[in-house]
């Protein structure tokens, strides 16, 4: 089977990209022809965070569209608007979250919702996404392919490590992404009673120069850790705290489980896939986040409970499918779909129309005089619009432009991080 995956970003560490890379690798290993197609300009950048990338074919859109595919998948929602460029028997949407929630801008939210407007072949890892698509797009073909756990990178330990000494707490997630709630998590850890000794670490792909301090002590930072080294970090902690408000199916708690740790998480979308309160983890509702501190106090004081959760967590990790199993399931699903012939009429013209409409709309928005027209952002007042307009003018000014050209990409990144810190 000739399979293409349109992807948003392969360079930065991301759980979503990891899933696509694992499936691409798994399908290739099974003898299928696979190509990854970054939707953004691909400048042959090295993405060292995932060793599997080296053995996969990565090709820019303008080259990849010369081929004919059996299945072409959109993944990140914006890549749905690129699907029409490809000739394929099946147009698929590998949907890992309701990504409208990643954006505050209403126009992106609406464009995201349009990506569910055609009865494509939807493949998803999460029961809640499969259920949601079936509710809103009954004519679509929906296939559930649960994520695997990388046995190469996250082999299960024999037994959970011993749990003496201070409670070792690992926070996971990037800084500056509000729905990951990393900043709030550190604040909540600061509310744990002082007599409860804690060692706090932070595993992150992006920290924006931050050095969090919890109860007067600096947090141990594990930044940009290649995936094949992550388990050594996980193994040093008893419990992962991950309080996101938006997830598809998060992988890090399961990876933590494989190393004999437990997790405290929110009842976020996707948590029901494998987290069981009191069996392998402790779950907290968004309106009870304060309970995180008391959960940690409980785990410190009740080592029997901690051991029991870690044991349950390890059992869960052992039962999780491997990526080989998961990709085999995907391959079988695709073969069956192809054998049965396309279940939908060719949606390519409709995809092209959708992309054209979306593109024109975004262009119109960009050219709109924001200060004079009400605009599509009902919560932004005239003053904020004016500031936004001035900021854009400043960014376009020759002085700023030439300064940006003069700065190296690394320096630009640092300057931007510094500016963001000041603004926050």
């Amino acid at each position: 089977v000739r399979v293409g995956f349109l992807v948003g970003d392969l360079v930065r560490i991301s759980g979503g990209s990891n899933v696509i890379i694992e499936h691409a690798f798994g399908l290739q290993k099974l003898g299928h022809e696979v190509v990854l197609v970054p939707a953004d300009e691909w400048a042959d950048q090295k993405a060292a965070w995932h060793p599997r990338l080296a053995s996969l074919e990565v090709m820019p859109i303008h080259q990849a569209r010369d081929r004919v595919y059996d299945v072409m998948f959109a993944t990140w929602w914006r890549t749905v608007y690129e699907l029409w460029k490809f000739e394929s028997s099946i147009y698929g949407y590998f949907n890992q979250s309701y990504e409208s929630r990643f954006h505050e801008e209403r126009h992106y939210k609406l464009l995201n919702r349009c990506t569910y407007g055609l009865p494509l072949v939807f493949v998803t890892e999460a029961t809640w996404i499969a259920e949601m698509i079936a509710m809103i797009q009954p004519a679509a073909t929906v296939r559930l392919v649960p994520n695997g756990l990388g046995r190469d990178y996250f082999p299960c330990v024999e037994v959970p490590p011993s749990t003496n000494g201070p409670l070792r707490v690992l926070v996971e997630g990037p800084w500056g992404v509000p729905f990951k709630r990393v900043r709030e998590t550190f604040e909540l850890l600061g509310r744990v009673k002082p007599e409860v000794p804690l060692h706090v670490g932070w595993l992150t792909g992006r920290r924006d120069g931050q050095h969090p301090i919890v109860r007067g002590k600096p947090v141990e930072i594990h930044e940009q850790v290649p995936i094949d080294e992550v388990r050594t970090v996980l193994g040093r902690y008893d419990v992962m705290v991950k309080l996101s408000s938006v997830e598809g199916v998060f992988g890090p708690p399961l990876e933590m489980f494989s190393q004999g740790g437990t997790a405290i998480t929110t009842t976020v979308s996707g948590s029901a896939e494998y987290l069981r309160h009191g069996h392998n983890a402790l779950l907290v509702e968004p309106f009870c986040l304060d309970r995180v501190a008391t959960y940690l106090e409980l785990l410190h004081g009740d080592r029997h409970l901690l051991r029991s959760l870690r044991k349950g967590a390890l059992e869960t990790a052992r039962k999780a499918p491997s990526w080989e199993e998961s990709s085999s399931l995907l391959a079988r699903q695709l073969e069956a779909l192809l054998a049965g012939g396309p279940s939908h009429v060719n949606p390519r013209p409709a995809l092209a129309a959708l992309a054209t409409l979306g593109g024109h709309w975004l262009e119109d928005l960009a050219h709109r005089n924001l200060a004079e027209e009400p605009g599509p952002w009902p919560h932004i007042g005239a003053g904020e619009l004016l500031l936004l307009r001035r900021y854009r003018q400043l960014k376009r000014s020759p002085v700023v432009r030439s300064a940006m050209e003069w700065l190296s990409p690394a320096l630009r990144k640092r300057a931007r991080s510094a500016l963001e810190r000041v603004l926050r």
Partner: protein
Amino acid sequence: MKREWPWPGSRLATVGHAKWRIQVPVYDDGPFEARFFPLEKENCRAVWDVVSSWRPDVIVLFLEHALPEIPSSLGPSLWVVVPTATVEGPGLRASWAACVEALRKGAPVAIWRLGPIDDVPRGAVVWGDLPPCVDAARIGPLRPERRGVCVAPWAAPPQVVREEVSDLCTVHVLGSSPEDGEGLVEEMREHGALLFWSKGRSTILERAPVLAMAGGLWVLTNKELPQQWGFELEDDYVVRPRVAEYIRAAHDYLRLDATSQLVRARAWQKIRESFDIRAVLDRALFFALREGDPFDGRGAGTYGS
């Protein structure tokens, strides 16, 4: 004594006015048996006798009025008191505190706030805020084919909105009272959208948007729900504080409802993820009943607050 909730044969009684029935668990085939005992001012003594004879391990009490004397035979492991909007009145605070003190003599007491409560009785322990949850299992599946619009008479949008919307569809005025949560959900489920205009009054009047989301409706309101509840603006429900924008959003729903179907589906799922009282209680009790006395050595307001 260490007990892990739920233990075999464990029982949970919820006691309160019938208006709270929609947001309490009722079942006998779950991990624990759960019953609701409707309580009126007039039948207090009789109800408490029935509760007592059922011998619950946990009692969740929606406290609205001063309690009568509790039968001495009643000895639950844990009382969870949910002070309702009525007890916020200054005149009732004293009796509320006295009730909690009286209950504390026999058992640990936790407070689960349903609304803003300033005074926490001494010795009681605060679990935190309890938003309007629902027993999701008793509310049916999403009905995407229902597209009509309804309004609640106690939170109806301004006349100009109703006139504008009426040009495009019939606007159904809900007949159920705000207190009749079950009737309200049943009636709302015949429609696709609730247009709500909050006047910022009591909890019972303000719970309709959450009940509507539980019933699978698209909710348009003029005020944000409390941020700590975790509903996502635009993705779970829509807020338009100004009348002109409110009308435009209602028109969008009626004319371009394909995108609002996603909002309906996500809100319906969100309720099941985080606002299903069965799971919420299960998690809270698992935690509280790890120890025989879950509040041992802890002062007021320090437990989960």
